[in-house]
């Protein structure tokens, strides 16, 4: 048995190709306004830290166009503790929430002790108070944690500022790169560069590995790459085409597509004992599997009715159910984190757009308005979808919040970016 092991040297991101940067296209007219007051500092602490932390939090909170901010120079006061905080100073400026904080101390190891508070101006109450200890070298990380807590308190949704994005960059006809970056586009890492196409990245639930398809050996082959070591492991060529790997919620297996003698079906692949178990068996095309959050079902695309439509299959009973009927192209479905709705690519009148559907209803809602949209991925809190689309001959990523508050794009400087895959939250 031949084993393919490759040691990959992590290339330091050289900024030639990419770096995603979010551009807000449309914000709603009535976004909540948040004031991010520069954090106070005790004497003896590096002066910049205060403004650095409040700016980082502000950048995070504004990242997807969900809030608007109050400029620092328009503020009437700069409180750093509750004692100096006056609601009228913020009410008069139309502010809905204020974030204040203070760096209280730094110890010999360079650990900062930071306290912060969030005020609801309209209700005139403090709604969040917290304290965090972290290293001077990790102000970005500390800011993300505070941002997550503030975001959760205001929206009731999990904060996603420490999540990551995987994507494929095609900088010219013969260069394909598997990349990951922080969700704000920072800290890009190129995991693998190839002259042959790369497809279908998917994060392991622990965020330590990525599965994807690479054509480096002449045909579609599934690899698992460890992000820490860079080591890549082919799960071995089976049949003609191996594609569309997706991790099970427990991280122990992949659902994937194997085409034995040219008939693609869905299989479950156990990572530990490397066995394949067949899930579907039909002469039509079955592909694009994805797990329900409770692991009980798998959604997939099949053309068994004559056009690509979405189905779900119970992994135990193998009972199948057709999920879509409207339109002649409904494909690559994924469940929402709550398992109650799905999102997918919906083709109608020659346009391919991202759409959602409640499992309990027939109605399909189209979210996007461009015509070549594909590969949608959802934030772990279920509020934002990022997808791939195209402008001229260049692919870029688009994004939309599901409450309709914001639309944004994530272009790359050169070449095309596609197949975004949002990481899970760190547990």
């Amino acid at each position, binding site marked *: 048995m031949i084993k393919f092991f490759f040691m990959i040297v992590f290339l330091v991101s050289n900024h030639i190709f990419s770096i995603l940067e979010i551009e807000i296209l449309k914000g709603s007219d009535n976004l909540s306004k948040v004031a991010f007051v520069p954090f106070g500092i005790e004497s003896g602490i590096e002066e910049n830290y205060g403004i650095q932390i409040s700016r980082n939090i502000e950048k995070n909170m504004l990242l997807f166009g969900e809030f608007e901010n109050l400029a620092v120079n328009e503020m009437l006061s700069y409180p750093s503790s509750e004692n100096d905080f006056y609601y009228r100073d913020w009410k008069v400026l139309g502010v809905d929430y204020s974030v204040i904080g203070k760096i209280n101390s730094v110890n010999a190891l360079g650990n900062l002790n930071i306290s912060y508070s969030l005020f609801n101006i309209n209700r005139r109450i403090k709604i969040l108070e917290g304290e965090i200890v972290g290293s001077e070298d990790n102000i970005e990380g500390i800011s993300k944690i505070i941002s997550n807590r503030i975001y959760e308190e205001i929206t009731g949704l999990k904060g996603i500022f420490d999540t990551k994005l995987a994507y494929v960059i095609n900088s010219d006809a013969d260069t394909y790169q598997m990349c990951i970056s922080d969700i704000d586009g920072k800290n890009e890492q190129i995991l693998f560069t190839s002259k042959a196409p790369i*497809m279908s990245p998917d994060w392991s639930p622990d965020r330590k590995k990525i599965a994807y398809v690479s054509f480096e050996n*002449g045909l579609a082959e599934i690899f698992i790459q460890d992000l820490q070591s860079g080591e890549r492991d082919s799960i071995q060529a089976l049949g003609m085409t191996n594609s569309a790997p997706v991790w099970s919620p427990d991280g122990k297996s992949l659902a994937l597509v194997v085409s034995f003698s040219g008939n693609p079906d869905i299989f479950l692949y156990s990572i530990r004992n490397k066995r394949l178990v*067949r899930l579907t068996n039909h002469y039509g095309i079955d592909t694009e599997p994805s797990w329900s959050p409770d692991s009980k079902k798998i959604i997939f695309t099949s053309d068994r009715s004559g056009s690509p439509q979405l189905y779900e299959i119970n992994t135990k009973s193998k009972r199948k159910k057709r999920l879509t009927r409207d339109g002649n*192209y409904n494909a*690559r479905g994924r469940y929402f984190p709550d398992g109650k709705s799905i999102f997918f690519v919906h083709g109608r009148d020659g346009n391919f757009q991202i759409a959602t559907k409640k499992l309990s209803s027939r109605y399909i809602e189209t979210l996007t308005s461009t015509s070549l949209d594909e590969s949608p991925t959802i934030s772990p809190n279920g509020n934002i979808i990022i997808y791939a689309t195209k402008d001229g001959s260049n692919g870029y990523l688009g994004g939309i919040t599901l409450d309709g508050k914001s639309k944004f794009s994530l272009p790359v400087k050169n070449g095309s970016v596609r197949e975004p895959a949002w990481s899970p939250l760190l547990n």
Partner: protein
Amino acid sequence: MRRLFMEPIGIFILAMLCQVYSCAANVSDSVERMQYASVAGEEYLQGDKLETNLDDKVYFDFDKSALDAEDKNLLEQYLPEIKKAKIVRLEGHCDERGTREYNLALGERRALEVRDFLVVKGVSGKKIRVVSFGEEKPLKSSSNEKAWAENRRVEISLY
């Protein structure tokens, strides 16, 4: 067959068949790895490609894999060269519309249609290699009907 399945009664029959079949599949359908063709079989790619002066592409309609009379005619002309070759590589491709993984499967289906036609015409199936690139390797990168039509293809190469 397909048309039947689009009718309600057809869907019912299909559903019943699927139930029966998947029960049977439950029992024994676990597959050992490495019993099938692997990347090791792609070594011929290092060898020389045989040049012919024939048009080496077959084109398809959107989301379709059937060969029309023109395609079959082209393949007929190709047969003598194909029979001489040691390896026949059929590379299936799609246009950019629709989803990538589905297109990967569709490209494979297109290449298989060509293979099946060649086998019926007496070409040994053993020397035919089928691979799909889905929508990953378009000939034209623009987004219009003309480019899409050129990209929906099977490329034939002989070794």
